[in-house]
């Protein structure tokens, strides 16, 4: 299936988490932190650490490792606190 990441079309394997879709595409970070602007991506992989926050279909601060991808998802990387 297809999804977009910051406007770019990528292939997504159905059943995978958003984090896995991004990881499979070669991305290792998809947000920056509030204070230092440091890049973050997957860390715990199981919903504990909140490092993997991402904006999906306009909703910010979702844990990419917990959410299963859907056809046509519009995924956006995040800066700082994230914006709706």
């Amino acid at each position, binding site marked *: 299936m297809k999804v977009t990441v910051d406007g770019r079309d990528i292939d997504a394997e159905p059943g995978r988490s958003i984090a896995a879709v991004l990881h499979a595409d070669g991305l*290792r*970070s998809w947000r920056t932190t509030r*204070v230092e602007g440091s890049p973050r991506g997957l860390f*715990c*992989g199981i919903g*504990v*650490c*909140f490092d993997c926050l991402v904006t999906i279909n306009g*909703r910010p601060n979702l844990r990419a490792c917990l959410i*299963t991808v859907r056809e046509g998802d519009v995924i956006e990387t995040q800066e700082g606190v994230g914006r709706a």
Partner: protein
Amino acid sequence: MPDADLAVIGAGPAGLAAAGAAARAGLTVVLLDPAERPGGQFYRHRDGDDGRGHHHWRDYLRLAGDLEGVHYLPGHRVWHAEPGEPHVLHCLAGNRDERPVTVRAAKIVLATGAHDRALPFPGWDLPGVMTAGGAQALWKGQGLPAGRRVVISGTGPFLLPVATGLLKAGARVAGVYEANRPSAALLPLALDPARAVEGAGYALALARHRVPYRTGRAVIAAHGEGRLESVTVARLDRDWQPVPGTEKIVTCDALAIGYGFTPQLELAVQLGCAVEDGPDGSAVITADAAQATTVPGVWAAGETLGVGGAVLAMATGALAGHAAAGTTPPGALLRRRARQRRLAAAIAAAWPVRDGWREWLRDDTVVCRCEEVDHGALKRAIADGARDVRSAKLLCRAGMGLCQGRVCGFPVARVLGVPDRPNRPVAQPVRLRDLAYPDTSRGEHR
């Protein structure tokens, strides 16, 4: 009227065993779990998974078969548990469009499991650095390797299946660095024939792929511009202080770190269950021989009692299910629990976390990832009078972020020299609207 006689929280080996045993004894059972598939972290799997690469998969199939008599509610995160008659569990259901669900049950079995324990070091916040369990979840749950060339560092037998998992996923493993020198490690494994076979299988796989397995060494720093490019590995002394002059650089694009596991106890603490120090330095639920906690009508099972692996979790889960149902458990279960507990204690003793890791920290090393609090700020908070986790949090914000100290709780407590005690009134992030309008529809699984 409660929705069910028993609510089991967590559908890993312990929760599945508890739910199955209680349902067979005639209780109405609700099984709540945040994931979309049963199995927990141990039996994390994909759709159509044939079980190859999973240990004790046949046990899983048997337990999952027992779900027929159970109201299994996947995708349900319990964010608050109120004790009472009945107990009330506030949940959020659904993967992305969360809705509030309330479950009332006369009895509860807590089988909430554990998550990886990580230790901070310079560069551990670089993308590409993951927990060992996270790397394992990426392979088991998503079929993906954490990277092309992966280093594994930490302590404990769990590093071995992570390494073989990465090999199966197609990664190269550049090295496994075990901080302890478990010369006695073969002893506990030898107490249990199944584990000895399992361990031998891992050793064989590592040898076949020429993966270096080095003890008394650890990754003490990670490097890269925006993502991981290499790590520094150093030899450690007995206390885990790096031995000067032994550092070497290993290139890699992923690093998996694992220093044991921390039980997830926030629901237990909310219910008022007493907790105590576990054998490996993390808090565990206090429970009696029948798996009963200090709160009436609440039992505990699995890794919430201390990390002991799937076989022990299944035994304590089944025992908790029997206790909740008031049925007499088979003697074989009690014997299995006793044997597996001895084994777990031996493993905890052979793979401790030693304090010398604090020497890996520099002043600018991030300790709390969420609030970006560095070691220097934590030291200043201690100089300003912080004596426990709470005062450190107030003075430097360590542990105040979204993860509520789940990741930094153990290392911050260790730097302070106090026990790591979880206290989170809200176990999951909740939207204000769901706090303001708790669900009144109750029992929507009916």
